[in-house]
């Protein structure tokens, strides 16, 4: 083979260079490395208990599809009951192909799959919500609906934990953004488990991929033949996150391991800094019963505004 590079651990051809680990890896060693980090993260934060019913937020994008496969293989050694949950925001041209992938992948692995759509639950698809609205409003509308619907769906299904596909890039960006926006309390609530205020009305969220860089998740998907659509949401408008992502990637190229160090610093700080208890007890929305800070939750307020 001409110009080939070999795995640092065996004689096979390398498929990746991991600059932060100062090594090259073949397909087998790289996949094992990703799987090991996933399992270690689950153990490190005691994310899962034997026999639990675990929901997997499955958009059909690369992160959640890889999460589905890793959770499925974990469930062979740690008995878990899995259900994949897809939220269909109603974005023409963008969401239907990934909903199809989500359904196919869940079926392939024999995992129960449920789809909930904004349109059928709230009466509005994202496309109809966005008519005549500025592009920058999209992510906040979509985020409010999605969080609300995922939590509601989990409770309906009896899900005890919800696994989401946030990767190392996502979490290191979030840590930096919370610092840049001077939101230290919000930052301290962030982490591998929960993320939201502890309350029986909130299904705890876990992030088993938080120690895996986004690029490695994409590579893992390609190597394992997990179908992926590399496509951006037509409403994507997250100016600050895009900037942070670009800068962070530049830093990572110059100083490999930067993303890991940001996450690890944050986790060390979190160990010694406990967030203060919430000022008031959470209330429950008068309309939908979901936990909220006010009489009516953000989601129901949005729906009222749209009606």
């Amino acid at each position, binding site marked *: 083979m001409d*110009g080939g*590079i070999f795995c640092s651990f065996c004689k096979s051809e390398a498929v990746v260079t991991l600059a932060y680990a100062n090594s090259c890896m073949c397909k087998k060693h790289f996949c094992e490395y990703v799987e090991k980090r996933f399992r270690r993260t689950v153990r490190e934060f005691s994310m899962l208990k034997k026999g639990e019913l675990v929901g997997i937020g499955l*958009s059909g*994008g*690369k992160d959640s599809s890889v999460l589905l496969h890793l959770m499925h293989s974990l469930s062979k050694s740690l008995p878990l009951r899995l259900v994949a949950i897809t939220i269909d925001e109603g974005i023409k041209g963008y969401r239907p192909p990934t909903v199809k992938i989500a359904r196919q992948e869940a079926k392939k692995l024999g995992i129960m799959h449920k789809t909930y759509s904004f349109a059928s639950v709230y009466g509005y698809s994202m496309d109809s919500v966005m008519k005549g609205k500025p592009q920058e409003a999209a992510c906040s509308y979509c985020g409010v609906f999605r969080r609300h619907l995922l939590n509601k769906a989990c409770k309906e299904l009896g899900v005890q934990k919800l696994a989401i596909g946030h990767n190392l890039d996502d979490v290191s960006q979030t840590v930096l953004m919370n610092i840049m926006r001077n939101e230290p309390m919000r930052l301290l609530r962030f982490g591998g488990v929960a993320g939201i205020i502890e309350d029986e009305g909130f299904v705890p969220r876990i992030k088993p991929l938080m120690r895996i860089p*986004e*690029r490695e998740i*994409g590579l893992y998907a390609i190597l394992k033949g997990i179908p992926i*659509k*590399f496509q951006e949401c037509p409403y994507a408008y997250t100016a600050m996150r895009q900037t942070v992502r670009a800068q962070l990637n530049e830093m990572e190229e110059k100083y490999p391991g930067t993303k890991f160090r940001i996450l690890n610093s944050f986790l060390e700080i979190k160990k010694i800094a406990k967030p203060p208890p919430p000022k008031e007890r959470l209330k429950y929305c008068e309309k939908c019963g979901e936990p909220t800070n006010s009489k009516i939750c953000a989601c129901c307020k949005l729906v009222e505004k749209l009606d």
Partner: protein
Amino acid sequence: MALMVNGKKRKMTSGITCAQLVKKLSLSREECIVKVNGKPAADGRKIGAKDKVDVITIVFGG
């Protein structure tokens, strides 16, 4: 080399490594994967005149 970047044909002279190719395309190595002859390749992989190269941007979507 026969080069495709996100499904579009591009021109580039061979004899460089995958990492150099990504730089020349003004992409970030954190945001893309280079396949040589259908297989993902390490940064230092030299690209020959007969190689078929695909560069895929992977950062969008979740």
